């Protein structure tokens, strides 16, 4: 139940977040001035906060999608299995997001 809502919520967040990626690409294509503005906004503390949330949202939605692939083979559907897979998704998404930011942002 919660995971279904989260999958949908992260899907909607990714829908919006994809706009951020396209804005970056369009700015790069149009010129250095536009790219400077986008880099300043995305590099600000608020921009970084949004991008961190976007990273988690993408990772969570991907793991949720993989969970659906597993279910497509009609396995892991029993009570207990489902809950374990739900916890694995949510804990895995947080760990993966932290790993991505640790290695590519904070330590880079």
């Amino acid at each position, binding site marked *: 139940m919660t995971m279904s809502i989260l999958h*949908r919520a992260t*899907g*909607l967040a*990714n*829908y919006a977040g*994809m*706009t951020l*990626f*396209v804005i970056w*690409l*369009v700015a*790069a*294509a*149009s*010129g*250095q001035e536009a*790219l400077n503005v986008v*880099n300043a906004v*995305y*590099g600000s503390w608020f921009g970084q906060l949004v991008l961190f949330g976007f990273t988690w949202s*993408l990772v969570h939605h*991907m793991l949720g*999608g993989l969970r*659906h*692939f597993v279910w*497509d083979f009609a396995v892991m559907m029993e009570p207990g299995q489902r809950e374990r897979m739900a916890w694995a998704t949510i804990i895995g998404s947080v760990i993966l997001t932290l790993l*991505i930011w640790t290695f*590519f942002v904070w330590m*880079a």
Partner: protein
Amino acid sequence: MRETVITQQTIADPKSRYGDSRASTRHFITQRLSGAINIAFLLLLLFLVVRLAGQDRPDMVAVIGNFWIGLPLAVLIGVVAIHMRNGMRDTLEDYVHGATYRLAMLLNTLFCLVLALAGIGAVLRLVFWG
């Protein structure tokens, strides 16, 4: 367009048929296929952001302008847009109906189309015109 009312009896009866079976199956397969391809998109996105975040235009041209990065990226942006439109359709179907649904779906399609065209256009500009 008149919509058939689906009652509990309709759903409970295994012999009843409702919805568009062909369109729904296509929707399902499209969503799973594009979802799987999106894993490749995420890896490419991660590579691009790690490599290019905060960088100047010449760096972006050097990386995205590479034929083997730019062209797959352009294709993957299109696949993402399809996945976005399909996913939003699932959500809209649950919450809005009738004329409101058709309007919302129209806006959804337009948004995804504009996003895909803008993204692909920007990438192609970096690839072919630098």
